[in-house]
């Protein structure tokens, strides 16, 4: 499913956060959105998935989602947003319960999603018993179980330590190689953008406008190899050069209130 | 003796009560501001205590319960009020002894009435024999009202458990419950019973004295006071009995037909009573509330034994309480109905 964003503008309490965002995302593409703190990247993601109403502009979905998609626009959250009173399987099943599936079909879908994310043996565990990385795997499994057309990832790895982040990046790439979807990936981490995205949208500081779109030609599957290091580092340098000054301004603003 | 008395009276006239008090023996009595406390009011106002060389202090309470506690705890030397289960439990531990009578239910003298609610009366509750199956409001568990119902049950041959008792804590609550038709009947002192009947909220269906005459109230003293200050107690009782005689002369007269009459002697005492009783009663209310008090302060001794036995049978008074040990019959002569040992 293709996506078209037309003139997305949003303001909070009279403060302009996003200003005229136009963007096309092709089916199956991974688009990362980066920018300095407060550039409105999470707001943009909220608008795309219908959780926030834009002050102006619209989001168009072009083409029908696959037939078995129960929830075409599906999020993965930074803080996982798991229900602490449900075990892993029940947390994943939450996304299915209101769709009138048979019990067997529900169980089968949950089992498949857990297997895909390597959670098979943790089905009965409670979230409090899991590490951060495992919790986010539950969040990812819950997103996959509804077979989304567009996956909206809001800083999905930001709450995790560096090693876990590496592991999950590999897992995400493996999953995306098998599950077809369109992906919008918001992050403040330039490595993640350089490793995972086909294109990187760089937003300017408030109000958020598209400052530059960086295309990365190397296929994502090849970027993990040692020989790819210079390429990835180059992309990272380029992105950093684009946002560095604004990031500093943003930081000062935060510090001085 | 006479010389001392004359000197004391002279001092009283000359210097006023404040100075003479020092020469007199101090003694305190805990009491209710009820008409039934009349003898101590009369003894005070007519100077009978002073004649005995006593400087009496009244300590007023608003219920029988704290009076017994005050005497048992030594906060008052003597007490005068109704005899309750609570009293017997304290007295049974040796804290105090009954020495003379106060009110009693005596045939011909209305004091406590059985009152039916309007609705229950219309439905046939017109006789004290009809208590079984009824819901009856009383003040407290172990109160004189509770005992009066127990005696009625024995006399009329029903079980007290056939009556549903509602302890409501105060006469005011009992009256309100009757007016609100929340109970079928209540026991009320004459004054309150007349008021309820006048309102049309209830009907007097009988009087306790018609069914079960008994010794309702008594004068009692702390055991320590009796042991250590016996002469003071004797003097107090002498003044008290003298006032009882005055009271009987004024309020307990009956004509040839048995009807109570109140003459000039009553009129003379009524202001004394009105001075102490609260809320201040009218002359008519004083007469209506004037219970029978033995003119010589004599107790119905056997009935006190019966009371203790009844409370014990109900589990309200400890088994080891011995009625004989809570009575000191030496202060008043010729007590009535003394059981033979």
């Amino acid at each position: 499913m293709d996506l078209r964003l037309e003139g997305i503008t949003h303001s909070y309490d009279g403060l302009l956060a996003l200003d005229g965002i136009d963007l096309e995302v092709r089916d199956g593409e991974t688009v990362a959105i980066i920018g300095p703190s407060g550039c409105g990247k999470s707001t943009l993601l909220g608008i795309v998935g219908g959780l926030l109403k834009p002050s102006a502009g619209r989001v168009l979905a072009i083409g029908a989602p696959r037939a078995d998609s129960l929830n075409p626009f599906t999020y993965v959250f930074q803080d996982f947003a798991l229900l602490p009173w449900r075990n892993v399987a029940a947390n994943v099943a939450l996304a299915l319960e209101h769709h009138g599936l048979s019990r067997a079909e529900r169980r089968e879908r949950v089992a498949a999603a857990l297997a895909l994310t390597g959670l098979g043996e943790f089905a009965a565990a409670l979230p409090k018993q899991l590490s951060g990385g495992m919790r986010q795997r539950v969040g990812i499994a819950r997103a996959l179980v509804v077979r989304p057309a567009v996956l909206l990832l809001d800083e999905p790895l930001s709450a995790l330590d560096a090693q876990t982040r590496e592991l999950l990046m590999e897992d995400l790439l493996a999953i995306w190689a098998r599950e077809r979807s369109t992906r919008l990936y918001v992050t403040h981490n330039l490595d993640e953008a350089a490793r995972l995205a086909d294109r990187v949208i760089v937003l300017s500081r408030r109000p958020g406008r598209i400052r530059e779109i960086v295309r990365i030609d190397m296929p994502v599957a090849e970027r993990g190899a040692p020989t790819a290091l210079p390429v990835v580092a180059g992309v990272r340098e380029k992105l950093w050069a684009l946002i560095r000054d604004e990031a500093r301004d943003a930081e000062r603003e935060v510090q001085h209130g | 003796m006479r010389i001392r008395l004359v000197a004391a009276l002279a001092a009283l006239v000359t210097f006023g009560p404040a100075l003479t008090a020092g020469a007199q023996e101090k003694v305190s009595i805990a009491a209710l501001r009820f008409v039934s406390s009349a003898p101590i009011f009369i003894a005070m106002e007519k100077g009978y205590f002073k004649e005995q060389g006593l400087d009496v202090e009244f300590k007023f309470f608003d219920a029988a319960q704290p009076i017994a506690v005050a005497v048992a705890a030594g906060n008052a030397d003597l007490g005068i009020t109704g005899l309750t289960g609570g009293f017997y439990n304290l007295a049974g531990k040796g804290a105090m002894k009954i020495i003379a009578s106060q009110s009693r239910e005596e045939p011909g003298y209305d004091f406590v009435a059985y009152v039916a609610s309007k609705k229950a009366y219309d439905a046939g509750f017109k006789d004290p024999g009809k208590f079984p199956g009824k819901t009856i409001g009383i003040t407290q568990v172990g109160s004189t009202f509770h005992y009066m119902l127990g005696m009625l049950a024995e006399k009329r041959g029903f079980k007290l458990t056939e009556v549903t008792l509602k302890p409501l804590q105060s006469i005011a609550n009992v009256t309100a419950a009757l007016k609100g038709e929340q109970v079928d009947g209540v026991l009320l002192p004459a004054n309150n019973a007349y008021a309820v009947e006048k309102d049309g909220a209830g009907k007097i269906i009988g009087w306790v004295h018609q069914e079960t005459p008994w010794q309702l109230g008594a004068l009692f003293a702390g055991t320590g006071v009796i042991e250590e200050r016996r002469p003071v107690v004797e003097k107090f009782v002498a003044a008290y009995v003298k006032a009882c005689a005055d009271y009987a002369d004024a309020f307990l007269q009956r004509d040839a037909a048995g009807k109570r009459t109140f003459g000039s002697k009553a009129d003379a005492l009524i202001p004394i009573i009105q001075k102490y009783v609260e809320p201040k009663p009218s002359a008519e209310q004083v007469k209506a509330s004037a219970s029978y008090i033995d003119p010589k302060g004599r107790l119905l001794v056997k009935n006190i034994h019966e009371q203790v036995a009844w409370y014990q049978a109900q589990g309200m008074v400890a088994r080891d309480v011995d009625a004989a040990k809570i009575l000191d019959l030496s202060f008043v002569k010729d007590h009535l109905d003394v059981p033979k040992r």
Partner: protein
Amino acid sequence: MADAAPVTFRGGGFHPRPQRLVPVAVFVAVIGLWQFASWRGWLPALFLPSPWEIVTALGGMISDGSLGRHVGASLMRIALGWVLGTAAGLAIGLAMGIFSVARAAGLPVVSALFPIPKIALLPLFILWFGIGEPSKVATIGFGVFFPTVIAAYTACDSVPRNLIRMAQSFGLPPAAIVWKILVPGAMPGILAGFRITASIALILVVAAEMIGAQYGIGAFILSAGNLNQIDHLLAGVTLLSLLGLAVSAVLGAVERAVLRWR
């Protein structure tokens, strides 16, 4: 390196650890001392009976069957009043937690009525409901109702908003969001409220039984007071304390079962 000196330990302490024996020992020591003082006659027997006399009074209540009658009557009133007050309180409290209009309408009323001691309303309830069971149950019910409302709606507020956003992002219908997110998420706060309302119910049952109750622990304590049976009175107080402990144990078990996920 010239002189080698071991570093002195300076951590530790300030970390309360459970001591199983100390509470029991304190309890036994206090009771023992009390019994000893009574036995030596240091305490006035008229106003403070010995622990043994209290135990004897309790034993007497068990053997004559009055214990069951009193405890049964009180438990009945507590159970009925608590269940009614809690059911109504949860309904209103959750409504106030979910709907802005319900909160705007309910909050001033609850704020105005909550601080009123329900004991002060007992005479009013007697006028409305009579001196029988309904006024007693109503007193307990009203006493339980308001804290439950407040516990329920503040517990709703404490449910993380991101969970609700998550549920919306998966297209859960509003009713499912209430039952699957809001209610379970509010459970810790609601159960904490239960602890408070259970003790309120215990306090109020004693007050309610002071008027027109033939049986019940409160009625028993009051009549023991009227009869100056101090040993019975303290036996009744002991019963109340045991009842409180039992209720607390039950609630603790419920909390452990329901809030296993915490």
